[in-house]
Each structure stands twice: as C-alpha cells, then as structure tokens.
C-alpha cells in the first residue's frame, strides 16, 4: 500500500502551451536536503518525480501524472558574482531575469538567453536552451564551469566540463539528476544597448543569403517568417541582426536595470496586462494572415535597413512584451514546433514545411528562424544549420489534423538528418526521437539511467511519450 501523500499537496500542472496537463503532488524545496527528502519520499511511496522550473517548456517535459513535482523555483539564491572571472555562483532555481538584474550594473549579461526571461537555470540546463546567438555561443551548457547535481539515490556530485557526466546531465531534460547549483560564465558588456539592423526580406532565398552574409559578423541574428506567404512571397519576413556596442563612459546609464525595463503600456496607452484580450479575437487564420501581412509591409516601408540602438532586454525578451499572451490561445492552447536542419537541406525542408501547412490550412501564426552550430551534449539539438520555430493553435477540431501535419513535417526533418528540441516538443513519436538523437546516444542515456536512476524515479510525460522512462517497459 502506498503511503498517503496528502491531497492538499495536489495541483494540476500544464506545459506552457496548455495542451497537456497532469495532476501532481507539488513540492518546492529550498535547499539540497529537502531535494533529497523528496527523492526519498518517492522511493518510499513508489511514486516518480517530475522536475519543473518556471514551467516554460511548451509541451509535456515539465509535467507528469500522479507524480511528485519538484519545483526548483524557490532555490533562487545568488551566492557570489566574481568580477575577475565573470562567474556567477548560484542556486539553480535562479531565473534569467534574476541573473541579468543582479549583474547588469557590473557589466555582465547572461551568455545565452531565451525569448523570455522567466526560465530557471535548472530548467535552462535541463533543456540546454539556445538564443539568437546560438551560431557563435552554442547552447547555455557551454558556458557552465561547474554544477552540483543531486542523483536520484540522494548522492550529490559536483561536475565540471571535463567530467563525462557533465554533458549528459545538461540536456537530458531532468531525467538523470536534479541540478541544484550552477556556476555560469557571464558575457562582459560595455553598454546595455545593442546596435540593431532590421531588414525586410522578400523570400526564402533572401533569408538564407542574409544569414550567410552576416554569420561571421553579427553577435545576434534572428528572422521572422510570414508563414502565410505563398509563391514568390514564400519565406518573406523581417530579419534582425544585432551587435554589442561600446560606450565611452565608465558606467553608462544603459547598464541600470530600470533603464532596461519594458514599458508597461503598448503605444503609450493600452495597459499591457489586458492586451492578450485584444489579441484573442485576432487569433485565427484570418486575423493572423492580416497581422503577418501588415508586419511584413510595415517592415518594408518603415525603418528598413536603418540601424538603431535597442536595449538588451527589449531585443532579447520578445515573449515578455505581452504578459499572459498565451491566454490568447485559450481554450485549446497551442503547440510550439521547432526543427533543426543542416544548412544544405534547410531551405528545401523549411519551404516544404510551410507549404504543407498551407496545404492543410494550418499555417503557423508565427515563424522564427535562427542559425545554430553543433554541440557536444547528450540530447543535443544543435546542427550546423538552421532552426524554424512555429506556433500552432490547438482546438478540439484541428488536433488530429495538426498532429498529422507535425508528423509529416517530422519525416522531412528525419530524412534530412535534422534534430528536435525537447523543450518545444509535443508531437514527436519515439521513432522520430531515436532517429534524430542516434542509437549511440540513446544507448548511453539508458546506461546512465540504469546506473544513476535504476528505479527510474525521475520521469515526465515527455519521457513516457518518447520511451525514455524504463519503468514503462516493465508495465
């Protein structure tokens, strides 16, 4: 008989896209001993544990059903900031926002940031997130100089990059251990502003050409793609490159956090907290087709090719402009779909993915393309090529068709030797993941799982879906 875990601990947790949910027993430890206690309780009660940071993984990586949920977000203490070595030593529940707010005035910026500042470092390392500088800086794991991990048996290990376990614990989606402390090497900056170059791009060929032209020059590159563009307009969008800038003053005011804060109104008038309510009626094919077209034409006519300064926060955290924007996708939620394709195949594969969407009348409402490079991590998603990230609205009616579309797009990626990114996945089948991650990496994962977590304490709905939880095999 399982010892009663109190129902008063229960909560329904969903992935960020709100398409998948599960009821869990929520625990929020504040120190390593409490982390060990939760793992111990899991062993005693026969339950499994799912790890969660800020809950920003879109699909089902941060949820499970009837498990203990270990939410790391209260382990959020910054221990020290070493100004000589540019290293921050902190608990792993520290968020990217805490990190930049605490270090900006000293001239530091997180080496890698996602499109939102919400993720915790533990979550960021579990998924090994990337940013708009992925083609030069790689994923965030490459900037960690040391970390502590609590293994499912309760042992604590301190890992450095030379330790073979280091590259497995980072990237393995929280299935091998609980990262509790991180030492991260920050990027030194002289100014809080970037020099940003927007370029309106007419088609796919133009998109890839600009990336190639600037890949040895720009510090950040990202492009937005209008997935409603057809024929000669297919692949149209707006490209942005950005460069770090120097300022002559010793302490430029742009390094003050309050000068970086995003405005609390849109167009100086609409309070941002309600903006999602205005987006909701537009959040359908017709509204989004119009909005995408308007954005494309605005980029062509206004400021095209004109460099301008922009704050690091404003440029980096586009997803934080509209609070609760995901509510515009209610009631069904949305999925994010991001595939990574080697550069020689990317133009064909991405054009084909968008064509398939148009054929199914399920165009992504937002398309974002970035440049990447390979990395040495176990569940790596890095390729010498490009990624295309897509947002699809999910409704009860379109769900089946949408998954069919995703599977058709998966097939293209697998055939091209591409990869997928677990933080954004909802639709992969076990075979898709196995094919892209490689049998050698998968075998190593199962060896490590058997060694470090023989009872398969750590799990997630994603792990069960992709066949990464050995406990499922015994059922």
């Amino acid at each position, binding site marked *: 008989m399982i010892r009663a875990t109190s129902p008063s601990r*229960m*909560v*329904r947790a969903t992935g960020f896209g709100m398409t998948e949910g599960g009821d869990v027993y929520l625990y929020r430890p504040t120190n390593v001993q409490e982390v060990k206690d939760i793992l111990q309780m899991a062993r005693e009660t026969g339950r499994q544990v799912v790890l969660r940071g800020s809950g920003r993984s879109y699909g089902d990586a941060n949820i499970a059903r*009837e498990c203990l949920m270990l939410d790391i977000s209260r382990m959020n203490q910054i221990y020290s900031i070493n100004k000589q070595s540019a290293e921050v030593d902190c608990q792993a529940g520290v968020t990217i926002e805490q990190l930049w707010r605490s270090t900006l005035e000293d001239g530091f910026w997180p080496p890698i940031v996602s499109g939102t500042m919400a993720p915790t470092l533990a979550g960021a390392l579990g998924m090994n997130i990337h940013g708009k500088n992925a083609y030069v800086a790689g994923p965030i794991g490459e900037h960690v100089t040391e970390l502590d991990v609590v293994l499912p048996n309760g042992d604590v290990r301190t890992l450095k990059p030379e330790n073979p376990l280091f590259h497995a614990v980072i990237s393995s989606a929280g299935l091998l251990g609980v990262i509790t402390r991180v030492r991260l090497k920050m990027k030194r900056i002289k100014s809080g502003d970037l020099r940003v170059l927007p370029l309106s791009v007419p088609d796919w060929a133009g998109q890839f050409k600009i990336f190639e032209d600037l890949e040895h020059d720009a510090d950040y590159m990202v492009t937005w793609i209008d997935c409603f563009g057809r024929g000669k307009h297919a692949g149209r969008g707006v490209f942005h490159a950005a460069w770090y800038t120097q300022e002559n003053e010793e302490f430029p005011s742009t390094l003050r956090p309050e000068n970086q804060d995003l405005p609390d109104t849109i167009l100086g008038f609409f309070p941002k907290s309600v903006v999602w309510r205005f987006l909701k009626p537009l959040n359908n094919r017709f509204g989004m087709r119009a909005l995408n077209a308007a954005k494309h034409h605005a980029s062509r006519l206004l400021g095209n090719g004109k460099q301008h300064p922009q704050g690091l926060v404003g440029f980096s955290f586009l997803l934080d402009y509209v609070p609760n924007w995901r509510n515009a996708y209610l009631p069904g939620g949305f999925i994010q779909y991001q595939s990574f394709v080697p550069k020689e195949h990317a133009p064909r594969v991405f054009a084909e993915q968008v064509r398939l969407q148009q054929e199914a009348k399920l165009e992504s409402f937002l398309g974002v393309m970035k440049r990447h490079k390979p990395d040495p991590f176990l569940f790596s998603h890095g390729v010498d090529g490009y990624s295309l990230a897509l947002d699809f609205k999910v409704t009860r009616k379109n769900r089946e068709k949408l998954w069919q579309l995703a599977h058709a797009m998966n097939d293209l990626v697998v055939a091209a030797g591409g990869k997928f990114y677990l933080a954004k996945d909802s639709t992969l089948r076990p075979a898709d993941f196995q094919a892209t991650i490689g049998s050698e990496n998968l075998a190593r994962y199962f060896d490590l799982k058997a060694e470090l977590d023989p009872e398969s304490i750590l799990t997630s709905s994603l792990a069960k879906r992709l066949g990464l939880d050995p406990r499922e095999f015994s059922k």
Partner: protein
Amino acid sequence: MIKEAIIVGASSGMGYEVARQLAEAGTKVAVVARRLDRLEQLAAAFPGKILCYSHDVTHFEEIPGLFQQITHDLGGLDLFLYASGVMPEVGWHEYSFTKDKPMVDVNISGAVAWINEAAERMDNTRHGRLVAIGSVAGERGRSQQPVYNASKAFLHTYMEAIRNRIARHGVAVVTIKPGPTETEMTAHLKMKKMPVEVAARKIIALSGKTGEHFLSPVHAVAFFIIRNFPSFIFRKLKV
C-alpha cells in the same frame, strides 16, 4: 474525453453499467466493490481497461489509502462516481435498526468518506467530474422508506454543499436522481423501470454538467409537483 475514472459500487446496477460503457469507449476504469468475482468478469471483457479493487465501503479506515493507491495505479482522475447504495425491503410498520443501519453506513457514511477524498483532490487540482447517484426517493420523506429517503436527501444536500465549494473552480459536481431502474436493488419492486443501459448512458452524458439531474423529463415534472405538495395532504396519501 474521460481518460480515467473511479467507480465505487461497480459490481452491479448503474455502477456496473457505467463502468462497462466507459471501458467500451476507451476510458481506464478503476472498479471498486465487495464482490471481486463480478469485477473480474467485467475486467476480462475489457483487457487492460479495468482495474479491480475489492473493498467494503463501510471499512472507512481503508478509504484514504485505497484512494491514493487507485489514483496512482490509474495515472490520473477525470471522473469519480459514487454508485454504492442499499435499499432493503422495509414493511409499512417495520422499525428495524438492523435493516436501517446499512443504509446509513453505505448510502451516507461510505459516500462521505469516498467523496471527501475525491472532492479534496479536485478542489486542489481544479479538474475533474464528481458524480453521486442520489434518487427521486430523496425528494420527500415517504412512509414506505423512511431511512432510504432520508439517506438520499442527505446525499443531495451534501453534494450541493460540495458543489458550492468546488464547482467555482471548474470541477463538475453532479447529483443524479434516477427513478426506478432495472437493477438488483429494485428487483422486488413491481413498477415501470428504466433499463439500466439507458440510465447509464444518461449518467455519462450528464457527468460534465454541474447540478442536479433527473433522468427523464417526466420525473422532473412529477417530482416538482410531489416536492411542492402541501404536507397536510401528502401525509394522508398512501405513497
């Protein structure tokens, strides 16, 4: 879509039939009852879809642990149905505590012990459907079945209170008030009865709709009248 369900009192009658229909539709159903052999028969018809638990609802101390066990085994909970109920034949002039006590234990205490577990969980997760089988018999105290009537009236009021606690969070809290239905419990009654398959289908369809529901419009009208019948006349009727 109901992915996982718990049905307490699933070895016969409406509980059995709801379990059967849910399993047929693809739901994973945990069936709880005293008579394990009957549950296992059902499980054999739907391999992998039915989990059986032998339990007497009057063993109250088992309930919290068993509820934890079942939700763990199921891997989730979308629907909880309390369908246990007893109605011994009671004579017009019979005052037998021996016959009355099981009705209090099963129809009231067992219901509270089980539904409290499910309600606390759903209060926190803000997800699920909580359904109890009441009865049209709970609408009035009638001379033929004092304790059965009172036990169902208790259940209706208790469920109303639970509904007022947790329906605001989006949990469906449903009281079903069936009339006479073709089940073992009513085998001794000679009257027109609703086939149990029909009753079960209606219960599943209503399980997402917070509120009290009769299973036929005739009952709704008839019991509206009966409920509002003046007491000084009602007591003179032989009902």
